[in-house]
């Protein structure tokens, strides 16, 4: 029997070729989208980590005031720790940005060149991949750092700068302004010695523990190394210490004279007078490093999202197919009844009616998977990663579970959904099938519509009758809007970053000082910043506690003289979901201390995670003297010795870097927007078509009675307008709310404000576009209405 029934399948396919082609296309597109995203995610997770491992990614890094002594390094290496000096000096690049110059690494965080090779001659350098790409640099090109010129010998990446950000607190990669340059040892030493760098050399060491001790044990060991602040030759540091100690420095010198050399009390006094300066300025284990393993971490969430979204999308497609199969079953009711009467089993018929949906889904799954795994799929999706993170060329890899997912999930879901939906139809009594009994289903029968006009009542009855297709239209719209809002929210957030960062930055310059002068520079507004951290979704973020005067011109704040009640920035409130009155706990990882605050107010400030408090209260709280400050805001450039400045942030830099995300995400918005629109249009057209087909007999009857095309449209098609109009009113905000709710998970590792609010006009435009698309689609339904023949009614006779 199956063989005979099977012959119909091809004929069915031929008879409804356009419809099946559209469904095939939808599934291909869905599979392509899911497989390519999933494939790219898996490649980034597995391959980026594998490359990092091959390149001896560090277990952590620490920064010291002074280079460790050879004996201290030996002590660590003798204990089994591998240590690599990853010292760096920053120089101005030709475009006004910064190039961080380092030596070629030998044991840890090795450079992987995608092109070219390590520098061999003195004037050669490997340039970091993202910087090279953004600036259109190739092997053999010249690049300048300060007055030093190099020929690019290679383009590569290092695992400790996967997110090539200049400072750990930077929230956005901006390869336009920052890159790395790896040079020969000789050239590095010459550059450092020139004293022309933007800042003093940073003494950064990368380490690998090799299983011999923990991060904490290593940290304690380093902290135990003897350190005399007087060994630091940096003149700015020396000046700073003198200013802080004042006459105490002279007393200390006196106590160190031979006269007091045997005096125990003098030694105690010296200890008391020594400034609190430690050798270790920073200690960051790998899992807390905002530059390492960020590409994989960024896409990790995609994996579960893709698998879940794929199932929903395929279920929608399967249901669309099921609606057509049901229509076919209803059309063939007498045939099915006759076949039952002749002894054909329900199982045979079930197999027959699910064969084509499963076959089409399977073939579309194959096509979608092949496309998804191709350079046009996975390769295209990887561009997002390559466009932001500094990772080596990861290649294209095929993973068994993605292959199985792409090949099996579409037909499997199609089989399940179709079996579930069709079963009831095939279980009708044989006589009912033979007589093609059309029932107004029970639920819809008793609706009293007496008070409405005839046309309205007719439309409502029609809507109730076609509820299945109507709900599929709305469900399709909902899923498309979910997809669309993933992209739209991303764009909205980036756009907010772009505009709000600049709007909320009222200062022209923000100087973070290593060694603040005693007097606040003229024209500057003093502030005191302490960097603490807060965890969210397993990621650690820097939060700046900023002590300012309430009347400062750069922040609009109402501060209390309280250690507990603080004002938090809007960025922080959005990112961590903090409301007024909530407790905010921050951690000082260095000192292993927790600080609890109460958010008494939220102020509009998007450029960073900030807690604002009164500067005097804060000085007292953190044990600093009454005049201490380490940050200066100003409305013009200030004359502060470069050696005292840790970093200087200008409003211009904020403006430039805040636009990076928007430009990067635009293509994703177009792709997602395009895909969701296509899915919406195809699903809606197919469903509206099936509504017309389901009513074709009645439409033929109406034609016989003398109804015009316009009147038939009004009765059978235009009623759907209300479904789409009301459905959109419901699902548009619902989809936005759901995606907004999920967004913190999607960007759980991104350190920036998360303002997802859109102007009301955008909702109106989206609503208008949906209604516009609906009207265009219904226009094409006219042809379908014209094709309905009166013959079917006339032939319904003995």
């Amino acid at each position, binding site marked *: 029997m199956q063989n005979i029934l099977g012959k119909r399948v091809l004929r069915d396919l031929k008879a409804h070729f356009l419809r099946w082609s559209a469904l095939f296309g939808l599934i291909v597109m869905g599979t392509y989208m899911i497989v390519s995203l999933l494939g790219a995610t898996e490649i980034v997770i597995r391959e980026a980590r594998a490359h990092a491992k091959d390149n001896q990614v560090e277990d952590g890094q620490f920064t010291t005031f002074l280079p460790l002594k050879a004996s201290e390094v030996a002590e660590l290496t003798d204990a089994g720790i591998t240590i690599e000096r990853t010292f760096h000096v920053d120089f101005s690049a030709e475009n006004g940005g910064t190039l961080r110059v380092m030596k070629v690494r030998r044991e840890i965080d090795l450079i992987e060149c995608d092109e070219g090779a390590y520098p061999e001659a003195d004037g050669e350098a490997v340039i970091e991949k993202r910087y090279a790409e953004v600036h259109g640099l190739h092997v053999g090109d010249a690049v300048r750092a300060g007055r030093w010129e190099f020929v690019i010998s290679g383009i590569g990446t290092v695992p400790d700068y996967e997110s090539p950000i200049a400072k750990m607190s930077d929230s956005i990669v901006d390869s336009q302004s920052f890159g790395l340059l790896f040079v020969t040892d000789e050239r590095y030493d010459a550059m450092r010695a020139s004293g022309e760098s933007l800042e003093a050399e940073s003494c950064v060491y990368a380490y690998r523990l090799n299983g011999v001790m923990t991060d904490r044990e290593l940290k304690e060991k380093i902290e135990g190394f003897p350190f005399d602040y007087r060994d630091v030759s940096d003149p700015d540091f020396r000046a700073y210490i003198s200013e802080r100690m004042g006459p105490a420095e002279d007393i200390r010198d006196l106590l160190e004279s031979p006269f007091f050399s045997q005096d125990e009390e003098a030694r105690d006094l010296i200890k008391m007078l020594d400034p609190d300066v430690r050798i270790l300025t920073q200690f960051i284990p790998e899992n807390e490093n905002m530059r390492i393993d960020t590409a994989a971490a960024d896409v990790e969430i995609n994996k579960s999202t893709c698998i879940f979204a794929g199932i929903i999308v395929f279920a929608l497609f399967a249901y669309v197919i099921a609606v057509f199969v049901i229509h076919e079953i209803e059309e063939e009711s007498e045939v099915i009844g006759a076949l039952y009467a002749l002894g054909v089993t329900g199982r045979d018929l079930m197999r027959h009616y699910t064969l084509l949906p499963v076959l089409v889904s399977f073939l579309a799954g194959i096509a979608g998977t092949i496309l998804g795994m191709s350079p046009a799929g996975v390769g295209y999706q990887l561009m997002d990663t390559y466009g932001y993170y500094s990772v080596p060329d990861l290649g294209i890899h095929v993973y068994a579970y993605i292959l199985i997912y792409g090949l099996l999930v579409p037909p499997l879901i199609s089989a399940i959904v179709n079996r579930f939906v069709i079963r009831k139809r095939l279980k009708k009594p044989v006589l009912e099938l033979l007589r093609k009994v059309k029932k107004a289903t029970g639920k819809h029968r008793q609706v009293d519509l007496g008070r409405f006009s005839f046309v309205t009542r007719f439309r409502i009855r029609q809507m109730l009758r076609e509820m299945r297709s109507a709900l599929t239209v709305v469900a399709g719209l909902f899923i498309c809007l979910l997809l669309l809002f993933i992209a739209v929210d991303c764009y909205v957030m980036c756009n907010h970053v772009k505009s709000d960062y600049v709007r909320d930055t009222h200062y022209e310059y923000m100087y973070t000082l290593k060694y603040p002068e005693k007097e606040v520079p003229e024209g500057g507004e003093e502030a005191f910043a302490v960097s603490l951290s807060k965890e969210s979704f397993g990621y650690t973020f820097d939060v700046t506690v900023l002590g300012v005067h309430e009347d400062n011109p750069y922040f609009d704040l109402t501060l209390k003289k309280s250690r507990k009640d603080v004002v938090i920035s809007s960025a922080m409130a959005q990112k961590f979901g903090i409301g007024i009155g909530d407790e905010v706990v921050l951690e000082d990882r260095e000192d292993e201390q927790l600080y609890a605050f109460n958010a008494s107010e939220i102020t509009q400030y998007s450029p960073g995670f900030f807690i604002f408090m009164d500067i005097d209260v804060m000085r007292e709280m953190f044990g600093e003297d009454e005049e201490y400050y380490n940050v200066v805001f100003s409305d013009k450039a200030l004359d502060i010795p470069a050696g005292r400045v840790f970093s200087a942030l200008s409003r211009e830099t904020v403006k430039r870097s805040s636009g990076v995300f928007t430009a990067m995400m635009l293509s994703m918005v177009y792709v997602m927007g395009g895909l969701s629109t296509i899915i919406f249009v195809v699903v809606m057209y197919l469903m509206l078509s099936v509504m017309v087909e389901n009513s074709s007999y009645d439409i033929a009857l109406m*034609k016989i009675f003398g109804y015009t095309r316009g009147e038939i449209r009004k009765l059978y098609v235009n009623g759907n307008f209300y479904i789409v109009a009301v459905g959109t009113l419901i699902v548009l905000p619902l989809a936005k709310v759901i995606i907004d709710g999920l967004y913190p998970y999607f960007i759980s590792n991104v350190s920036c404000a998360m303002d997802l609010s859109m102007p009301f006009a955008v909702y109106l435009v989206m609503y208008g576009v949906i209604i516009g698309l609906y009207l265009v689609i219904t226009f094409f339904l006219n042809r379908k209405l014209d094709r309905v023949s009166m013959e079917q009614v006339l032939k319904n006779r003995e």
Partner: protein
Amino acid sequence: MYLEIKDLKKSYKSGEESVLILKGLSASVDKGKMCVIEGPSGSGKSTFLNCIGGLDAADSGSITVDGQEVVGLSAAKLSLYRRENLGFIFQFYNLVPNLTVRENIEVCRYLSPNPLDIDEMMESLGILAYKNKFPSQLSGGQQQRCAIARALVKNPKLLLCDEPTGALDSVTSRSILMLLEEVNRKYGTTMLIVTHNNAIRQMVHQVIEIRDGRITKNYENEVRKPASELEDI
């Protein structure tokens, strides 16, 4: 003459061949008369009815209804012709399944500028009690009454009935025929009834018999038998 047909021809393509179904039919029916069109299967009676109803286009000839020529009208004008002049009653009722009895009748009332009163119509056809029922909740006879009400509510000039009792048992068939008789008397509606049922010919004013695409008999009953007295329905 209210309905006048002259030399009506209609052919269908069957493969590469053209088959002539109506071979030059001419007939006329006076206003307010009930006329039966009889004939065996394949004789062309339904095609004849469909041409009169503007559902099928004749190849040549002429059909005039109340002075209006039907042959040669465009699809849009044919639609208007049906809307303004005709009522249809089918063998299998063709009620819209998801509309109530009242709403099914309203489908045609909506088309008429001067419709009859629905409640009165339902009352006289004995279906007022079922006005809020759906077709699937009615018997065959009740459904056909509903179909008749639907056809009559717009007060058509010509009522075309295609095997109106074909799906009904004899008792119900008789009641439907009595109803048509009553409608004809009460509203003066001109009716064309296509049927296999020989008994019906006795109750109508005029009988047209078609065989092989030609009118073989066309006569008026001198004495009509009321539907209630018909035998072997």
